[in-house]
Structure formats: structure tokens, C-alpha cells
């Protein structure tokens, strides 16, 4: 029983570090003041990955029924997608 405890805690710590890293990346992109389609899509992708990480591992949806995972993933996909569409419309 003992080793799974360390392993899962370590796992969550790794997820936390990844999230922190992605946040710093987002922030640095922002600081660099870069704009345009590529940057926007990258930032959106990072955001959706971070959200999915939180949902899957922090919220534990990874182990739940397919229905709940579809709802959560669908939410990130739709919200992220619509935001991307709005920004692409704006670029034209």
C-alpha cells in the first residue's frame, strides 16, 4: 500500500509543476507582447491543456464515466473553439 501513496503524490506534484510551467510560459508570451494568429492559438491550446489537466487529475475525472469526461472535454473544446473563431474573425 505504501508505494502507491508516494507514487500518486509524486504524480500530482508533477502535474502541479507542469501546470505552473505552462502558466509561466503563458505569462512570458504575454510579457513579450506577441500577438497574431499563431500566438493566440498557442495560448488557447496551453489554456485548454491546463484546464484538461486540472479536470483529469486534480478533479479525478480521469477515472469517471465516459459521460462526465465528454461533458468536461466538450466544454473546453467548445469554449476554446468559439474563442478561437471569435479571434480569427477579429483578425480578418
Amino acid at each position: 500500500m505504501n508505494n502507491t501513496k508516494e507514487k500518486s503524490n509524486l504524480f500530482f506534484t508533477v502535474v502541479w509543476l507542469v501546470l505552473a510551467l505552462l502558466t509561466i510560459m503563458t505569462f512570458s508570451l504575454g510579457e513579450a507582447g506577441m500577438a497574431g494568429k499563431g500566438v493566440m492559438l498557442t495560448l488557447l491550446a496551453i489554456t485548454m491543456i491546463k484546464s484538461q489537466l486540472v479536470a483529469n487529475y486534480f478533479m479525478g475525472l480521469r477515472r469517471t464515466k465516459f459521460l462526465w469526461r465528454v461533458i468536461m472535454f466538450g466544454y473546453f473544446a467548445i469554449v476554446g473553439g468559439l474563442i478561437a473563431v471569435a479571434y480569427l474573425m477579429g483578425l480578418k
Partner: protein
Amino acid sequence: MNHSSATLSQEDLPGDFAIWIFIFAEMLAFGVLFVSYAFTRAQNIELFNASQLTLNRTSGAINTLVLITSSYFVVRGVEAIKRGLNQQCSHWLTGAFLLGGVFVGIKMVEFQDKFAADITMSTNNFYMFYLSLTFFHFMHVLMGMVILAVIIMKARHGGYSAHDYVGVETGASFWHMVDFLWIILFPLVYIIR
């Protein structure tokens, strides 16, 4: 990554289903607000880009790290209570609660700056969305902290056990929602241009 419980059968949602109905409703409200922000921006990009520059991006980023870390603490708290360790759980959750306080503190400083500069929801469309989204989220952080406090109290008195920790998971799920809503809000409002 052989996650310890991946082999378990398909579980139900963590925590009480009642909170999940509330979580989905909040997600819907925030989702519509996010998309409305994006499409309103599409109509007046210069205004949005200009006003966006006046935001304090650093405090936003710090707040993101703060919330992610507090969310991590909550996960550790849940892992602890799964093994029946009430005290350890209450310590992790207290850590998460304090980080929530840090978030609230930073946010209030940010709001103070804006109100001092006489920026309100009626100033322009960007600030309307910025203040609406961040204030709506700010109140969710406060509510999340109230929920965490209730759980901490009960955990400190040994109220949970390895076989009964639904209350902890319920509060945790809400807190994680507050976290990932900010994870979306921060780049959308502060960064993407």
C-alpha cells in the same frame, strides 16, 4: 504512468452530485461570458487591446500560480483523507485556504487600483467584461474559501474517515472548478490580443 487508481472500475463523480449540478451551471454561465467577451472583442479590437494593456499582468500570473498551488494542496488533502488522516487533510486544506486568501488580497489590490483610476463597469465594454468576469470569479473564490473552512473545521474534529469523505471531495470539486475557470479567464482577458 501507472496511476494507482486507474485500474479501478468506472467511478462516479467525486463528491456529491448536487455540487456537480451547480458546477455545470456555473461553467455554463462562465462559458457564455467567455464567448461573449471574445465576440464583443471581435467588434472593437483596438479598444480591447488598448484597455488590456492597462491590466496588471504580473498580478494575474501570480494569482494563477497561487490558485493552481492551492488546488494542488486540495488534491493532497483529498489524498490524505482517503487514508483517513483527518489532521493531515485539514493542514493541506488550510494551506489551500490561505492561498485563497492571498488570491483575494492580490485581487482586492487590483480592484482598488481600477476604482482609484475611476474605472468602472460603465467605462467601456472591455472594462465591463473585465470587471464582470473577475468580480464574478472573485466571489466564487470567496465562496470556495467558505466551503473549505467548513470542511477544515470538520476535518480538524475528525469528522471524516477513509470510508466517509464525500464532503471533502464535494468541496474539492468546487475549488478545482474555481481554479480552472481562472485558468481560462487569465489568458483570455489579460494575455491574448
